């Protein structure tokens, strides 16, 4: 596995990031993570642990005051545009423009990233064929199933060949074939030097797919490292539910 994921430069560097909501409740508390190019980095935790809050801050959607987040060396706070140009975000429940066709939406995103006509055609065709959605691209998004919307969101995220892909529960709603295709794409992107950061509840998938993992509980990172360091010979599920992490939770 090590030869497949060459360590590279820090693609995403989260430094002491905290996010406080009303009455001082910390949704994220002093989060520090570094994701290098070539990493497939899993982000796991219970519901409400702070995964989505962290992810939304990384992609520049959520405002924060404490700490800083760097993407490809640029600060999300100070240079948001530089960060967004190299990042792609796929939320768990993508809100796409329902009254556009799939193709109209993909063209919109391609226009935003200034992708040439030839390149966008090639990439849309490639990914739409892989996800078996080419025939439906002329239909309104409102007529799509959840999985089809998810596929369009994934294609729109890949269209500009991002250096960092941030995904929130990407496998929810995808059929087995599409899940497999997405995993293959993730591997391919990492081989080409991109980094993937994604949250998931499916620990089996995380264990097989990721080379690094971070566990978050009550807004705090309680464990981070390579898969081998975290699991210590056990399965990720066993490690996640083990007393070690439960104690960290109490502390």
């Amino acid at each position: 596995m090590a030869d497949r994921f060459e360590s590279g430069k820090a693609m995403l560097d989260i430094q002491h990031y905290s996010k406080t909501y009303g009455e001082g409740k910390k949704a994220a508390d002093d989060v520090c993570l570094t994701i290098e190019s070539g990493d497939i980095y899993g982000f796991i935790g219970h519901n409400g642990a702070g995964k989505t809050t962290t992810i939304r801050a990384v992609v520049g959607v959520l405002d924060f005051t404490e700490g800083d987040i760097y993407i490809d060396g640029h600060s999300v706070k100070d240079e948001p545009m530089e960060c967004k140009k190299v990042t792609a975000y796929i939320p768990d429940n993508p809100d796409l423009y329902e009254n556009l066709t799939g193709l109209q939406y993909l063209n919109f995103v391609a226009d935003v990233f200034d992708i040439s006509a030839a390149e966008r055609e090639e990439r849309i065709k490639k990914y739409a064929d892989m996800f078996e959605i080419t025939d439906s691209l002329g239909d309104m998004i409102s007529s799509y199933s959840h999985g089809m919307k998810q596929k369009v969101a994934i294609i729109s995220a890949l269209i500009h060949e991002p250096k960092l892909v941030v995904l929130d529960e990407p496998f929810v709603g995808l059929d087995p074939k599409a899940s497999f295709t997405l995993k293959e794409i993730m591997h391919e992107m990492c081989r080409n030097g991109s980094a993937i950061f994604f949250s998931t509840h499916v620990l089996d998938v995380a264990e097989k797919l990721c080379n690094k993992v971070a566990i978050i509980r009550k807004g705090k990172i309680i464990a981070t490292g390579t898969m081998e360091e975290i699991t210590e010979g056990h399965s990720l599920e066993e490690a996640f539910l083990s007393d070690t992490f439960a104690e960290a939770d109490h502390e």
Partner: protein
Amino acid sequence: MNKNILLLRTLLLSTSQRNIYRYCKDKKKRGKIVGGFLAAGLLYAMLMAYCVLMCVGYGLSGMIDAAPVMCALVISMLAFFFTFFKTNGYLFNFKEYDMLMSLPFESSTVAGCKFMYMYVKSLPWYLSISLAMLIGYGAYAHPAAIVYPVWIILSLFLPVIPMLIAAFLGFLIARISAGFRKTNIIQTVLTMIFVIFCFSLRFIIESIFRNEQVEATLERTSEITSNAAGIYLPAKWFADAVTKNSVVAMLLLMGVSALLFASVFRVVGNSYRSINSALKSHAASKKYKLSGQKKRSAVRAVAFKEYKRLIGSTAYTVNGAMGEILAILFGLITLILGFDRIVQVVTNDAPFDHAMLQPAIPFFIYFFIGMAATTAMSPSLEGRNYWIVQSLPIEKKTLYQGKMLFNMYLTVPAMVFTTLCMCISAGVPAVDTVLYLLLGLALCAFSTAWGCVCGVKHIRLDWENEIEAIKQGSAVALYMLPNMFVVMGLVVLVVILGLRMDHRLLALAFILLATLLAALSYLRVMSLAKKTHVDIKQNQRKRRGKRRAA
């Protein structure tokens, strides 16, 4: 392509009925789009006819010179209010915020394009007013040929400044609310306070401008208009550009509009992300203890769900419950100042016996309470969550009964309270008070059931922004417009008939009529409930058949 144009184009395309018509395969939906276009065309024609007639009135009374100022003021006021009510849903707290903000757009670009979207979408209404008044002005004032293009060009700029002011006020309210834990409630309360202030501002301005020497109503209107233009400079610039061919005034209107747009969105852009972060974040409590659960009937459970939906959205609360709040305030003010004083203020001291207005009390109150019915909006507001109620083991009629019950919960207390306030203040006898209360209740029932007919018949679930269901849906337009006009007519009719026949008999007749209309509307809702239930089942069967075939 410039990113502003790209985003604006996509925003417009994503709500374009033409695009839906082009790609939608559902014939029924396509038919509805065509019907919507025809209905909108009819409304434009009615609005234009009204504006032309207004100019004819000015022309016949030799006051056509006031038409440009009046045109500017009408457009500005409409633009201000329409934008203010929409700002919360369009500029802030919109559904696709995460998707847009994760793309390489500046915050100010997103905010600016959202504003431009509102502008482009409402421009046809303002232009129809402006063009109609230009026709009337042209017919009576016979202006030089250059006035026509100048008028049309400046009409494009007229709504910009009031819209920017409204958007900026919405931004300030959102910014203040963002500092509180209960952002939504604070935002709703601040918006309500501001709207009530605007409503009372009309009387303040009128009392400032009131000139006892000016007797004729039309002349007084002219006086008020020119005074208002003296305060609201863009109206003066428009009038000067048109009537005096002033290039300076023309440039001022265009330049100030552009400058204000750039300045407002520079300021809004700076805190756009922090405001939306606060508005889209909901503080979670970890200390909640489960206790005191109540069992409700299915109808009451739906009504409770409707209540939570209403208070969960600033735009819905402001539009859905504003009438009730205004009615209660109106009742309180009447109780404090006295019925006679209120009539004096509203009628500008017109010399007549105020008692003749008493039979119209329920209709006055209904003017406020009936201006919106949650039942007209709530079926569409289910939106993509419609599956929740669809999958529940309740019949459609139970769902609609719950929605109607909630509207009754909302309207009846306001109607009873305001009727009592007004009757006590006006010294209405007890028997008449009871009759007015009954009439008020019958009107509430009619408003609720008629709203539900419109809401169910013109249900639209595929909206992008809830404002589309709250303010722009055909269900709401169909409910509101005839309702408002009929109420205004009824007030006049009741006053006239009250002079010629026994007013108690008159009240009884209206109670019977309103009850009959409410009952017919309710039965229509029940028949629609059966129909939609069957439609859904048929659609499900069709879908299953298609899947099997595939």
